[in-house]
């Protein structure tokens, strides 16, 4: 299955990408995805394993199981206002 990954702010700058499509095995969780991204080495390894994540625009956690076509956003600590 494929999910769309979105990166913002410091994360976006860290790896030089804002959005990408990532292929994952069926049954993959948010944690599977994060491990895959960090496994790319270089600056990717600096993406947080325990940061906030949103799946389809709702906050989720590492256990959340992903489905084909999901939109997964890594959410750096927020600073609106």
């Amino acid at each position, binding site marked *: 299955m494929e999910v769309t990954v979105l990166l913002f702010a410091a994360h976006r700058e860290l790896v030089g990408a804002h959005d990408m499509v990532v292929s994952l095995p069926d049954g993959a969780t948010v944690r599977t995805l994060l491990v895959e991204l960090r496994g790319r080495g270089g600056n990717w390894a600096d993406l947080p394993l325990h940061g906030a994540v949103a799946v389809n625009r709702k906050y989720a956690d*590492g256990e959340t199981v992903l489905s084909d076509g999901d939109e997964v956003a890594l959410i750096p600590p927020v600073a*609106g*206002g």
Partner: protein
Amino acid sequence: MSWSDVTYDPIDSSDVLERVGTPEDGAVALFLGIVRNSNDDRPVAGMEYEGYADMAREQLAVIVTEAAERADSDRVAAVHRLGELAVGEVSVAIAVSAPHRGEAFDAARFVIEEIKTRLPIWKRERYLDGEAEWLEGHLPLAREGAP
């Protein structure tokens, strides 16, 4: 008639104010967040607001609904700006009307506090010396159960 938006357009605070108020309301509270000209004595040139706009829009609607329930008023309006803002520009505007002042103040305060802890928005402060920095933020949720 609660209302919320996340937008790249300049915020018109009187428009936000006019979105609240009914004949049964005796109190209106308005809060504006403004880009300041300094931070910890460092001169600021402007602020860039980056957002996960679609999610921020949904989250702000949720916050406004929660505020309306707390205030026992459906007259809550909030808008957050994204993009490049100059010093003095409005980054966020919140208006609440309610029968009594306590509810109006509390709901407006609730919305700005929740915006700062839940809305997927990030700001990079641009300094007069040409540098820029992402401001430290809040972890949006307790990550219990996270891997």
